[in-house]
């Protein structure tokens, strides 16, 4: 019946969307990683910030690669070769592509107040 056909098509579309959504969710992207200085007992010497938002990268880098995956030319080739023969080469890795520095206000070993910038401490973007 028409209704059954409609339901079937709608159901298929729904399932397909769900599958795509799941697949999209597993793609290489930035995820939260946070160290709370109070929880580890360092808030007595680290004045600010209260915690460290470091972030991390995880996810798949499948072929073909979307633009937002920030893939390098090498990653595209590696993914292509991997898709043809997975035993030959592993898939490309999901890694940080952009970092930013972290400012920390703390007391040093001689109780002097120090402000210091640390390079490449926070992941801003991930890519393949």
């Amino acid at each position, binding site marked *: 019946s028409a209704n059954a056909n409609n339901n079937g098509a709608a159901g298929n579309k729904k399932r397909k969307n769900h599958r795509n959504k799941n697949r999209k969710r597993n793609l290489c992207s930035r995820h939260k990683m946070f160290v709370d200085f109070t929880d580890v007992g360092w808030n007595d010497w680290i004045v600010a910030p209260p915690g460290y938002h470091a972030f991390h990268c995880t996810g798949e880098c499948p072929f073909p690669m979307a633009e937002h995956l920030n893939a390098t030319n090498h990653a595209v080739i590696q993914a292509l070769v991997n898709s043809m023969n997975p035993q030959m080469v592993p898939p490309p890795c999901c890694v940080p592509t952009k970092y930013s*520095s972290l400012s920390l206000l703390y007391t040093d070993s001689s*109780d002097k107040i120090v402000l210091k910038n640390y390079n*490449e401490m926070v992941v801003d973007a991930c890519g393949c």
Partner: protein
Amino acid sequence: TTSSRNFVASYEIEDSHVEVTRSVEPQVLARLESQFLKLFGMPRRPSKRSAPLKVPKYLIDLYNAQTGNDLGTSNLHLPGRHTRTANTVRTFYHLPSSTGVRWGHGLKFDLSSIPDHEKVTGAELRLVFNKKNNVSLVPVGVDAMDISALDSDSMGSYNSVRVLVNDVIKPSKKDDEPHMFPIDTKYVDLSKRKKNSFWITFDIFPAVSRWMENPKSNHGLVIQVIHPNGQVMSQSTLKHIRVRRDTDNLSGQENDPVLFTYSDDGVNKKQRNAKALSRAYR
């Protein structure tokens, strides 16, 4: 780290935010702390403080300016200042019990906590000035003068003064004037100052640079306030001022003179060199 702590690891799975709390073994936490301290360039964890820490407002402002500043560098963002590749600001308060400075408004700072590998690229002395009745200028915190003890005749009534910072090259043996070298001066026009209390910053990098090369040559600084008529407010004119300082509090008061050093720990240079070598190798 003697007992295990609850460590909160939070991460995201798909759309749901998951927070897992689990007990971490003291050894694991100690290893984590050791790695962090190594990253921070600290040999050991600072001792626990009994009194609350007083952080200078300037440093908090600088921290706020740096945070959220998405620059791809760890260099301090200080427009107009020649701090170059500095990524560290250290705070030093005047040593109240120092005997090295005997003359005038002497200030002495112990810079021994700056690690040898750090290169100091800039140094500033910040003093708070109080405007009294719009006519007199009293440097607060310089030898912690008790303002109530000031003789108004010796202060005079002026709208402007010149403040001179001198590096003591050779200290005086008695109460004579030491050998000094002027390193910075500021002209302060009180009529243009709206606030009663304000900070004045002096560039004292030449002195700090000399002290870093030879720590024994650190005899402190001498501050002189010069009135328009040429009268210098030195020990001779201010010897009646009672020196008052709370020697128990070494952490610094809000209005104490404070020295900030800007230094480069060299870590980023190593990273830059390593990256350049890696590129060349490839």
